[in-house]
């Protein structure tokens, strides 16, 4: 079983703050859908930034797709993220002034690899965007709308299409459903699952909402993982 991602003895603190993360071991296997839970403020988003190479840990090793992130230059990490990872945030994922298609195609502007993959698979970038958006239930009449004209649920699906375009190996979702109402949450996750397995991507799904946990292959509690958890977060 190969790992998309594995880390050992990772330690991280924000400048002038107490140690936030101290994780002895954590990994994600290829094709796995993992649910990482933890209360807000526990360092979930920070961990995701570390996994994407946006921040560097003060200590420890982080291997993603066979690359040791901390040994790469900042430029190489940014390239690496663009090539291999799709991000999905809680809300306001889209640039409001771009239309839907342009928003979906953003990663292809910064990653040649994903642009090549997308147009290889669907003929052209626009085709790829259209296909993904339609799979996620967004009719083509919406594709040239401005992002801020859509409902939040629709915006999250556009964000999912953007994370998935060009088939990155890892999808990182940072509480993407917390702005949705309960009924649409499950529907959204099922769509996301379908697209991830279609593209062969692993999914790291972060949330403080326990009720979604049963849908996933594996559930991990950040508090159990993180030795630094407890003291400051309890207050």
């Amino acid at each position, binding site marked *: 079983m190969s790992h998309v991602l594995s880390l050992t003895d990772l330690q991280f603190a924000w400048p002038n703050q107490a140690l936030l993360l101290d994780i002895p071991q954590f990994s994600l296997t290829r094709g796995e859908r993992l649910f990482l839970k933890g209360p807000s403020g526990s360092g979930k988003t920070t961990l995701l930034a570390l996994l994407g190479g946006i921040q560097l840990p003060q200590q420890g090793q982080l291997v993603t797709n066979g690359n040791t992130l901390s040994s790469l230059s900042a430029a190489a990490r940014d390239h690496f993220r663009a090539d291999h990872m799709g991000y999905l*945030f809680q809300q306001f994922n889209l640039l409001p002034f771009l239309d839907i298609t342009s928003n979906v195609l953003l990663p292809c502007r910064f990653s040649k690899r994903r642009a090549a993959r997308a147009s290889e698979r669907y003929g052209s970038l626009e085709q790829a965007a259209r296909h993904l958006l339609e799979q996620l239930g967004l009719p083509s009449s919406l594709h040239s709308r401005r992002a801020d004209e859509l409902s939040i649920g629709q915006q999250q699906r556009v964000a999912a299409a953007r994370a998935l375009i060009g088939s990155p190996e890892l999808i990182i979702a940072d509480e993407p459903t917390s702005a949705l109402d309960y009924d649409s949450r499950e529907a959204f996750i099922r769509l996301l699952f379908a697209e991830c397995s279609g593209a062969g991507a692993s999914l790291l799904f972060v949330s403080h909402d326990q009720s979604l946990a049963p849908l996933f292959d594996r559930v991990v509690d950040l508090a159990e993982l993180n030795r630094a958890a407890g003291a400051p977060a309890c207050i």
Partner: protein
Amino acid sequence: MHLIRLALASLRNRRFTALLTVFAIALSATLLLAVERVRVEARMSFANTISSTDLIVGARSGSVNLLLYSVFRIGNATNNIRWSSYQHFAEHPQVKWAIPLSLGDSHRGYRVLGTSAAYFEHYQYGRKQALELAKGRPFGEDLFEVVLGAEVARKLGYQLNDEIVLAHGVAKVTLQKHDDKPFKVVGILKPTATPVDRTLHISLAGIEALHIDWQNGMPAYGNGKISAEQAREMALQPKAITAMLLGLNSRIASFRVQREINEYSGEPLLAILPGVALQELWSLMGTAEKALFVVSLFVVLTGLIGMLTAILTSLNERRREMAILRSVGARPWHVALLLVLESLTLTLLGLLLGVALLYAGLLIAREPVLSLYGIYLPLSAPTWYELSLLGGILLAALVISIVPAWRAYRQSLSDGLSIRV
């Protein structure tokens, strides 16, 4: 280039502030260009006030003073020069032509110049343009004839054959009028955009006739009075004039003749080269002109600082935009470049609009500026100098844009993906 499209789309999203910024930059650029165009043209038309005259000769005083009263009709001569001196140099072998100038009278605020027919033949201004009559003919048939400069005729509403009364002295309000000897308008000159337009020209004999019965600056009374009719009968030979203009056979002789005049034993005289004196005078006024330039530079700077403020205030609410870009693989310098492109776009649009406004303004203001100030503003394409000014503004915008770019760079590094709005 994809970043440019992103920058444009982001600007379009904030089009109201963007438009205001563009407009501020446009106005400041228009001001700078307009000031520069007027400055260049004013200097040019100033340097061209008099041409083809090789030497100006007057009583010994300062060269700027001589230039001011002989060419610009500003101020007064401290002394006259003798008619015999005029004759001496008018007949000098190197001198091709000589124009006598006699000043000292005025008419409703405009100076009266006594001169000879040579004035209409040899006086030149601008790029060697001779004087031309719009109507009528030069003076000459009768003693009491006057040829008006264009502005005098226009402002005072004079026509050919009008009779006008000249005043003694040059104050605006004159008590002593030569009202017993009215002058008839026989000619009106075409506009020259030089002080000629503001001058009334009469013959030297006319000047003499005006003053023939005056003693000690006061008109004679009773029997001492000489009527216009009597004056016509007399041979009126001037005893003195104020200055003279000389044209030489060869320009090379200028310095030699100048020295000869300055060393003339008959009376103390001063000869100046008009080009040199004009430059000297312009450099005296240069400080005001430079101040104007500096002020308009500061206005441009204000416009750019306005842009800086607008972009900096937008930065905070755009942190999410930056984090999104980072998450899809943008590098921090992409984010910084985006802001530089934004500044450059705003400035470029501002400059284009500014140039458009300049030409619109020129189209409207050309006529009034020409008739009011005698400055001809050409509607010509931007000069290299003006283009380099515009380039300078763009460069300044580039330098200024480093401030928000640097802040966004730092911000996107420290924010990472956690956007805490």
